[in-house]
């Protein structure tokens, strides 16, 4: 088959053929899979808004700045 092609095209195909062993073996399917899971991983790493609603962790900091139980506040 190669013999039927002209010299330029042969050169290009030779490159591809020789480079072929080092070509990215990731298929399009695999690529999209990687993107999806990678994105999910990033979302977990970043501050998830879900966390705030599941616990009072934020409030733990706020709880520190909290009224003293025995103090009496002023009524208006």
């Amino acid at each position, binding site marked *: 088959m190669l013999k039927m092609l002209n010299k330029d095209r042969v*050169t290009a195909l030779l*490159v591809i053929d020789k*480079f072929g062993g*080092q070509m990215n073996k990731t298929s399009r399917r695999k690529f999209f899979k990687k993107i999806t899971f990678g994105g999910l991983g990033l979302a977990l*790493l970043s*501050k998830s808004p879900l966390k*705030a609603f599941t616990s009072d962790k934020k409030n733990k900091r706020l709880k520190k*700045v909290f009224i003293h139980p025995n103090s*009496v506040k002023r009524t208006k």
Partner: protein
Amino acid sequence: MSENNKNQNKKIEKSFWKSLESYQNDSKLNLENEFEEGVTDDFNPSQLNGISRRKFLALLSASAAFTAAGCSDYHDQGEIVPYTNRPEGILPGSSNYYASTCNGCSVNCGILIKTNLGRPIKIDGNTENPINNGKICAKGQASILDLYDPSRIRKPLLNGRETNWSEVDNSIIAELNKVSESGKKIVLVTHSVHSPTFKSVLDKFLEKYPAAEVYSYELFNNHNRLDGWERLYGNRNFPKIRFDKADVILSLESDFLGKEDNFIENTRLFAKKRDVNNPDEFSRLYSAEGSMSLTGMNADYRFRVNPSNQIEFVLSLLNELRKNARVNISLPDDLESLVSNYSLSRFSEEKGIDQIKLNYLLEDLLKPGKNALVYAGNALPLEVHYVVNIINEILNSTNLYAHTSAAVEVLKLNRHSDFQALGLELSSGNVGAFINLGSNPVYHFQDAGDWKQHLSKVALTLSVVVNENETSENCKYVLPAHHYLESWGDSQTTADVYSLRQPVIAPLYNSRQTEGILLAWTTGQTYTEDLYHNYLMENFKSSIFAENKSPLAFKNYWLLALHDGFVKIKTEDKTLTPEFTTPLQIPNSSKSNEFTLSLTENYFIGDGRFANNGWLQELPHPVSKITWDNYLNISPKRANDLNLKMGDMVEVTSGDKKLEVPILVQPGMADDVISIELGYGRTNTGEVGKNVGFNSNIFLTSNHTNTAYFYNNVSIKKTGNFHKLISTQEHHAVDDSSVKDFHKIRNIIQEGTVDQYINDPEFLQHHKHKIFSITEEHKYEGNKWAMAIDMNKCTSCSVCVASCNVENNVPVVGKDQVENGREMQWMRLDRYYSGTPEDPEVSNQPMLCQHCDNAPCENVCPVNATNHSTDGLNQMVYNRCVGTRYCANNCPYKVRRFNFFNFRDYFADAYYDNEVTPLVNNPEVTVRSRGVMEKCSFCIQRIMEARSTAIKENRELKTDEVTTACQQACPADAIVFGDMNDENSAVNKLRKHNLAYHVLEETNVKPNVTYIAKLRNIHSEDA
């Protein structure tokens, strides 16, 4: 082969050449090989880089994604998250108020603390507490920043390393017992004790450790006043002075309006007697002092008198007054013969005091039907106080004494000389334990020797402090104490009021209550947050509750007391009879031609305890307007003689003590007096206060002949060095004769005299003319906010500025930025001099955004970031502002402040940009960032809060319902704010007053801040 073929062959053989060189076969033209070596080699894929373009781009995008995920938005201060379990009593968006007691000084004012989401954000006076009647000083206002100071000690320290409380408790108790058994002394050092409960804890400690001794001190105290009082009346209960009833006041080296004792209450009372609606009742203030003070600035007449000459002055005065006394008192013979040697006319001649003014003084003091009072400063020797008390007796001024509110000493203060003796005792090795409870003797008493060496001889040294200081750095144990906003406590400074202190926030760090620590060590109980709380309740039950015999159950009475913040105690008025028991000894006041050095307290830093408070460091000094420094005050004449100008360094020599300080030429100083304020030059405090100013405590000594605050025979010598002093008053200063007295030429300051006003109430309006406008005036329906400031009441105490800073989250910018005129305070107090530099007349004027109806700033904003609201406010929309600064350029009052940096993280390498300090911010006010213009907003957040409350209650806003932060804080009630469209509002009435004027009103900007002209109560001959 045909002939054609032969010809074709011939053609092929013919060669062509382009040039002679090619024809000559020049080797340079050997172009057979067109490409360089290696160019046309076969392509070898194995030499390619293993990463393909595809992979490279994939890696690049992945790393960018990770970076984006890792970087948090620096603006992000967390999320607004609703409570899932809301703590009881906290409603987001609504504030709670708690009554407590301040402990910034010995007065212990009643305070109301505003808290938001469980954290305190503002401190104001408790309106019901009779000690201060709803007002507090600038130190009290700014003390909230100290709660959130990042340099607070967070854990117990042992030899500089962090440890835990159980280790500390066990080892200290063991060491204390060991010391006690050895027979060595245990020394406890503390500031003044006003808490009866703390006193009982100390008594318990002394009972357990009989070798223990308590040293309690205040660097600036009233020993001399109490000693002088005791000498004549036999007790140490100095009464409260009714300045609101005094028609004539002679103040002797006393800054009773600025920093002495309960100056906030004094200001409130004094201002009552400066009411323009009762000009006949105006008081007249005479001031005789060596240095220019805030009280001196507000005096109607001022004499420059060296403090060493005050004894001569009062004796001369006594000699003149007793001849025409309102109350005849027979003086003992020795005093009679002593007094008769003095003469006011001779004093006037020798000291260069105006005889005419002295005659006015005599005339006013003796005027029948008028209450006169002579009031001496705390710094003067007891002999002066003794004579002043006698003068007040013969003037019948004793009716101005309120004995029901007399001062009470819970624990008698030690003297300066006691600390000198303590230093010797420490170095002798007789002391086994040194316990410092919140004080700083190493910084304050530098004449006691080398404290580091003294304390090295003591086995157990510990400090219980909120912040590290010069004393704690020499102690083995450094224990973190609660801030007063985290503490329980009580206080009794006057006979009729018992105040309570309650915590308004759970402890931020692993600190403990000082009293609770001692109680735990003494009783052996385990420390808990309730330990001292319960002890306080028990003490309250057995003392106040038992004495008051209330019908309420104890618990209810206790909760009511906490709610109010204080309990009134029934006291009775009394009449005291003077007794002349001790002959008067004249203090030695020998002087040469050198100077008398006067050492005074700083208005805002105090004795140094507020050195790390950025707001207070940046608050301009009320007299000099200097920030971030202390200096030596000298008179213009002596500065001229010595060829000194502002900032020149001089070496001050007093005895064997020397110090190099910069000088400030201060108009109004006595020529033979120099003064320095203490509290600066701290070496061990947070980054804000460290090495700011010059430590002048070295001059304080107990080996004085006069008092601890004045030293004669002090010399100064120019060193040639220079230290730049930053004064906010000098910004935009123009050294041009055309602007001399421009505050009078441009009618920025408009003044008159009381007599002038009584004779012609409209004297101020004569020079005015109607200002017309070519445009139609806009009609404001509904509310229209305006402010009026009464210059007769304003003393320039700067509490309004401090309150505004706290309320509106004004940042600290630091000395270098203040030098560039970039201080961010929304309000300033302009100070103008007139008259001569020797005897100047001082005029003060608060200046803030005037909220002009024809605001020149609104027209020039290219993005409409500043505009006018329908209720008359000049508004600022921060997120529209792009920072052209055209508005500030156009403002004739120069009240706009620009954020050249994000000052939160600019100042002191982001000292205030941490997880704790932002808690001090008022959540109702935007925190401004870089590039944004800001200015006074007439506390729009308070207007909105009042408006939303009115809407909720389905009503209109009440008259005078809204108070701005400055108005609330002003101790003299000089600032009035309200709706000028409401006929009944106070501001409406003041706008129509005969003495009302606007600053620069000829520019037709229509400012909404009205000033009431100051009336000086001087004799008509002087007008």
